[in-house]
């Protein structure tokens, strides 16, 4: 059993309730599409928190370590120059640039990881679940894998929550 259904909604409240109910009845939520981030949808879909924070922390630390090492290496090892009698390894003076490098690596690195992880590339093929999803439509895409669920239940649930359009898709699409 493998049916795929797509329901189109017009408000945040409806899509939240529909997602919650369909998941509670045992449907698998493929994804929800919305023109703006609907808060609470991750709970309705049962998604875990994003792990991007750890990625960001690791990248920022790597940037800081790399830049600190580079400054010490250039100033004290590769070509030491006596500037006003200051110590070759002027550690406190290296902190501002180290800090900037942490921010730069953390910010740009996290964005790149997010784009790669979400497969957002300029050449990405556009797969819109329904027209208007970037305007004012909310789309719930779900899959039925459990053959024991009563036929037509998902359709009825979605209709009860105000779906304006329900479509059954073949699995190859999307």
């Amino acid at each position: 059993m493998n049916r795929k259904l797509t329901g189109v909604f017009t408000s945040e409240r409806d899509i939240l309730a529909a997602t919650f109910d369909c998941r509670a009845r045992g449907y698998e939520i493929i994804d929800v599409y919305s023109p703006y981030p609907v808060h609470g949808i991750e709970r309705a879909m049962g998604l875990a928190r994003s792990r991007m924070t750890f990625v960001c922390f690791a990248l920022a630390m790597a940037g800081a370590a790399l830049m600190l090492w580079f400054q010490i290496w250039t100033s004290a090892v590769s070509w030491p120059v006596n500037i006003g009698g200051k110590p070759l390894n002027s550690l406190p003076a290296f902190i501002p640039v180290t800090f900037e490098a942490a921010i730069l690596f953390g910010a740009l690195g996290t964005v790149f990881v997010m784009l790669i992880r979400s497969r957002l590339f300029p050449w990405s093929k556009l797969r819109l679940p329904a027209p208007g999803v970037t305007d004012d439509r909310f789309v719930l895409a779900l899959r039925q894998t459990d053959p024991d669920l009563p036929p037509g239940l998902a359709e009825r649930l979605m209709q009860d929550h105000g779906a304006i359009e329900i479509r059954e898709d073949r699995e190859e699409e999307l």
Partner: protein
Amino acid sequence: MSDSTTALRPALVDGNRRPGDVTQDISSPLEGRPTWLWWVGLAVSSSLLALGVAATGYMLTTGIGVWGLNRTVGWGFDITNFVFWIGIGHAGTLISAVLFLFRQHWRTAVNRSAEAMTIFAVMCAGLFPLIHMGRPWLAFFVFPYPNTRGSLWINFRSALCWDVFAVSTYFLVSLTFWYIGMVPDLATLRDRTRSRLKRTIFGWLSLGWNGSARVWLRYETVYLLLAGLATPLVFSVHSIVSMDFATSILPGWHTTIFPPYFVAGAIFSGLAMVLTLMLVARKVMRLENYITARHVGSMCKLIIAMGGIVATAYSTEFFIAWYSGNPYEQFVFMNRAMGPFSWAYWTMVGCNVLTPQLFWFKKIRSNLLLVFILSIFINIGMWFERFVIIVTSLHRDFLPSSWNTYIPTKIEVATLLGSFGLFFTLFLLFCRFLPVISMSEIKGVLRHGRDH
């Protein structure tokens, strides 16, 4: 739903808009023909830009001597403009990042244009140290790169070198923040437009965005992280800019108050510039429903707060100069207030300390024309603040025989006007081709479809 407008939380968007209306209101000005007001603005700003390009071209082919700088006053308009523009940028980051972290939902109406302002202001700022070098084609010397001079590296102990890293990081991170924030809106434009060319361009830029909740979840986390990174960044950037001065031993520059003083001043000047631009964009792009009197009021209140910090810094500087017992320090400050540049000092005090006090009155805050005029006064005052700090500290140094004055030449004035031309040209082009208001964020703060 929408009837429950309470006295506690007035609606952020006027006119009872629905998500579809938001898309329509914000995208349609980009699809039709521009208003005559836009053309007038573009004509003026691009003429100024052309003037600046000509002045800079003349300077580069003739030499730095065409500026009014001399041996005593080695920094004048060039560095004043640099600090002024970089400061302007800071309010953009404050609005987009700091207010985001504080969950100030009213920022949604202004954050996109404030971020754009940041990027254009940092571009203007970066230009000045570049042309100040005199030989900008050698500008890459400021970066540490392996070279044939034995790999002679840059001096990482120098505040000017920190500045290179701070400003370039600031530019890149602001640009990323702005672009990432715009991806969902670019997707909206892509799905709306009828022009094949626009669809291709927006299609590339929007990275195949389809509003998937899984991506939204990750996207929002990253957006929060960027805001969290941009906040310390904005404080560090202007602190480092202030260290260009504070790490020297010149009286008037060599003070520990400089980093917080500069950051407060930067945000203060930037807020004034955001206000100026917001009031223009609101009229030119007909966004009265989105940029409401409430937004302007909130900005005015922020200006009062920042103006208070700036005023405190001015008086602290004077107090410490007296309290230090250092005659050189005392002289510099007396010279600032009563010397040959006292007119600049009192212009600064008038514009930065007195003008914001008018915003205490609700009548003034809600008179948009008056707010517009006052915001320009603050812009002028903050430009003079940097001029005063730089020129009055330099022109009478330790050796009276080398005392000198500084009279800017026409070329310098033309370059300053040119930077305004560049800034406003870029801003007007941005208003024309990209959504000035973040549609995806505005839709999220509407009352439509929610239980409130």
